[in-house]
């Protein structure tokens, strides 16, 4: 716990345009390198700021455009290697980056831990020691109350159930080992183990999927409607709102973003930003300028780009297509009831509809759900895990079980396979903060009638 690498979001959440994710420890540079696209951080000079992107190592998709500061030991706050990631993509993106770092082996810093390390590594003098302890104590209380609140009862029950299931497997293996002649427990073999592990893997996968959906459902999707004047942005807005009138209001969010309205479309909340641009009859690019448009698009998580079927593509259409090309977007060709003059062959994937038609809303809803992999939300179990640390632990547990499955494929003996199964069990236990030790032994003796 002293030599591992710790990570935390060191800016206050939800405030400020930029959030900083800070890591300290031997592996800080290694870990960040795994998700950073840009210069090789191993080779950059100490105390430099480096431009690049944070990518998802699974599919190499870009998560955020960032500046990464690398500060090498010993001239740093903690005297260890420190890496700071300046994220621009808003709180959700920052959480996602934190989650990735946790999954890759960084540990979420305990309250006051950066300062604690600074002290233990002799960076801070003795006079400050007491304040360090005060800090740890105060922050712990705060963190505890937060932790208790964030772990939803349903979530903890779900994790507990999964742990029970894994513990059952472990206990059976352990009984086979400690009481080899005891004939009442089934003899655990890889053949029996394999389907059980696959089953738990699927459940974990489901939780991870739901976690993604959960975030979207809880937080909504920051959406902007863009397009030239008179292509049908207002009709789109009205069509999306359907019966639910008057939802568009001026509610200032707690963040810098002005969320101007919420639309619930089939269980998904779209947080509309920059609705002013929609109602403006003038050429938006000209009026508010390219910079402003860029900024709005950059902030949004979903772009509804509206084009007019009845007109050929203009310079502004091309500009908007270019600006949105790396974002999640839906290109909507409106007014298909009119004669088609648009060059469809020059467009990427798009949908065609008429805002006057009733099915327009359904078509767009379906496309949003496809884009965000939401499936049929109403039929989903609404148990979501949102805490980044929890998600990272579940991912670790998932990876461990994948390793266990791999070991089964390699025909490893069952007690070797168990090493990874036990690891998964411990990772899940860390979510609940449960002690490991006696647990297993209690399970052994309550489940099996053992002894001479």
């Amino acid at each position: 716990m002293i030599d591992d690498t710790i990570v935390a979001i060191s800016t206050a959440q939800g405030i400020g345009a930029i959030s900083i994710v800070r890591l300290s420890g031997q592996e800080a540079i290694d870990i960040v390198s795994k998700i950073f696209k840009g210069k090789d951080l191993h080779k950059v000079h100490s105390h430099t700021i480096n431009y690049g992107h944070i990518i998802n190592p699974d599919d190499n998709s870009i998560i955020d455009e960032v500046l990464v500061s690398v500060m090498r030991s010993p001239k740093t706050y903690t005297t260890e290697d420190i890496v700071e990631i300046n994220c621009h993509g808003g709180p959700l993106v920052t959480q996602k980056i934190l989650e990735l770092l946790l999954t890759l082996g960084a540990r979420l810093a305990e309250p006051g831990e950066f300062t604690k390390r600074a002290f233990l590594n002799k960076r801070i003098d003795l006079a400050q020691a007491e304040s360090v302890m005060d800090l740890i104590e105060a922050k712990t209380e705060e963190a505890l109350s937060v932790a208790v609140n964030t772990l939803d009862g349903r979530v903890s029950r779900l994790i507990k159930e999964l742990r029970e299931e894994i513990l059952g497997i472990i206990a059976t293996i352990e009984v086979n080992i400690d009481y080899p002649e005891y004939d009442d427990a089934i003899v655990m073999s890889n053949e029996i183990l394999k389907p059980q592990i696959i089953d738990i893997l699927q459940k974990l996968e489901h939780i991870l999927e739901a976690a993604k959906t959960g975030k979207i459902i809880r937080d909504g999707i920051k959406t902007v409607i863009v397009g030239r004047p008179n292509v049908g942005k207002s009709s789109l807005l009205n069509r999306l709102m359907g019966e639910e009138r008057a939802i568009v209001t001026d509610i200032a969010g707690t963040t810098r973003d002005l969320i101007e309205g919420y639309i619930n479309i089939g269980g998904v909340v779209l947080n509309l930003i920059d609705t002013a641009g929609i109602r403006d009859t003038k050429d938006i690019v000209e009026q508010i300028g390219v910079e402003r448009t860029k900024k709005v698009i950059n902030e949004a998580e979903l772009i509804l780009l509206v084009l007019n079927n009845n007109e050929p593509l203009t310079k502004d259409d091309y500009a908007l297509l270019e600006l949105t090309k790396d974002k999640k977007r839906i290109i909507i060709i409106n007014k298909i009831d009119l004669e088609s003059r648009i060059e469809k062959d020059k467009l990427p994937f798009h949908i065609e509809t008429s805002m006057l038609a009733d099915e327009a809303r359904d078509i767009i809803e379906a496309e949003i759900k496809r884009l965000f992999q939401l499936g049929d939300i109403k039929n989903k179990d609404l148990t979501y895990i949102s805490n980044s640390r929890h998600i990272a632990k579940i991912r670790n547990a998932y990876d461990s079980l994948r390793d266990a499955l791999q070991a089964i494929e390699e025909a490893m003996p069952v007690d070797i396979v168990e090493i990874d199964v036990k690891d998964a069990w411990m990772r899940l236990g860390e979510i609940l903060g449960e002690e490991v030790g006696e647990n297993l032994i209690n399970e052994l003796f309550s489940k099996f009638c053992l002894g001479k």
Partner: protein
Amino acid sequence: MYDIIAIGGGHAGCEAALAPARMGLKVLMITSNIKRIAHLSCNPSVGGPAKGIVVREIDALGGEMARNTDKSQIQMRLLNTGKGPGVQALRAQADKVDYPRNMQETLFKQENLTILEAMVDDLIVENNIAKGVVLENNEKIYAKAVVITTGTYLKARIMISSETRESGPDNERPSKNLSDNLRRLGFKMMRLKTGTPARVAIDSIDYSKTIIQPGDPIPHAFSYDTTVIKPVEEQLPCYLTYTTEETHRIIRENISKSSMYGAIEHIESRGPRYCPSIEDKIVRFADKPRHQIFLEPESKYIPEIYLQGLSTSLPRDVQEQFIRTIPGLENCKIVRYAYAIEYDAIDPRQLWPTLESKLVENLYFAGQVKGTSGYEEAAGQGIMAGINAALKIQGKEPLILKRNEAYIGVMIDDLVTKGITEPYRLLTSRAEYRLLLRHDNADIRLREYGYKIGLIDEERYAKFHQKLRNIHNEIDRLKSIRINPIKTINDYLETIPSSPLRESVIALELLKRPEITYEHIIHMLNEEMRLTTEESEQVEIEVKYEGYIKKMLQQVEKFTKLEEKRIPEDIDYTKIPNLANEAKQKLSQVRPLTIGQAQRISGVNPSDIAILMVYLETYRRRGRNDE
């Protein structure tokens, strides 16, 4: 004047007396009955999962249990052979006459060791330092250190149903005064309980109704130094039978007569969960139609069979009734009845990891008296208490085995850090680095220590080093040899069966295939076996499980860093500001030696550890400023 006095001649006492004597110190063992030294008072078996590995660890350190078992065994089996190398272990049936006789012979021949038959009533303690013992007749014997290994004898009480009397095991005299005197010195005592089943006459059993359980057809030995192994043909088998519905009915009807289920008004003691009585099993697992009963031979010389699985504190007539409902035992003759035994033990958190007591310096405890169960657990602590008492007298650093080094280390750390609520038994599940704590590598883990403290002589040490060299040289060699995909090789692979080679492969890589053994490789290389079985086993394990072993070693590296962060012994936890009250109390009780140990105390949270570390750093810097 002696260097060390060991009180008690059980499995802990034997090792606690032998180790220091072999290290050149003058030792006195005091036992209440010389004939009972190293007696196997419960089941006639030594070893088993985890426990068998402890026996090997004792051997690696230079103790006696392994060698003595090899000399006295009547059956030997390697358990968990179908599983991975981390969980295999030997178990022997030991002859109840030969085992103590052979051990006594070793003790009597041991230089520097005197054995006295007497009862110890009190300790001589001056300024919180142990100086010797006071016998029943008031005679005082002085020594530099005292090791208490009195087993279940402190205020022992035997119970059969409602009948209870003061007695040690098998009607031996209990120790009546020592535990009160320990209490007077300030020790916190607790009441524990265990039991032993009935024995029946060997010729009164109908074996045709049971299932025979023979020993292994290949010879085994616990000790790394045993060269002559008893021929497998001389092994005696065990037998398996089961309880019946009728057995359960009789027990249920008489349950109120059990001393554990109401026959005695006030039972203060707690029995171990892993040693439940048959009535306990039937009550707690009511839906189980039958329970296994193993019939184990006690000795070549005593015509008695031990009924493993039938511990009870029901009255004699009920025992007669229900035992006879078991197939094979219908007409059996009960030679000795089952009983439960209750005794005083100390809370092990009153000991340092060296097994020295925190209250009284130079006073050590080992075995059942500090809350464990089992011969192997007792012996493992006995040797550590003996070694550490000797090292202290010699003015040397103590030997504390870490959790990643030995089951003995796991056990002692558990005991002194977490305390107990029932007699403690070692299980493989208690070890977090099981794959490293194997039965095949106990010597590799511990022989170096044994040599350093003077328990392993030059000859055994040289032999051990030769073995290490052979293993490493062979692994290096296999890395440098390639095997080519020629017809003879591929034909041979097919017979194993294993898939044929398409291109040439490094021998070591081929050995990584699960179905390929070291012998196969040697055959493919057209060579003679040059390694011993033990050596080739090491080569195989190190190659095949390399990935897992490496992963575990990485975990150990992190773990060790915390174990190296020492906490001064004189720290006052109540003076640490910001520390949670529960943590203050628990830390003051256990007084952990390292941050790692502190972290394992239940009720001490990560934030407490953080505060403790900051405080220690402050403390350290202030100390330096004062100089």
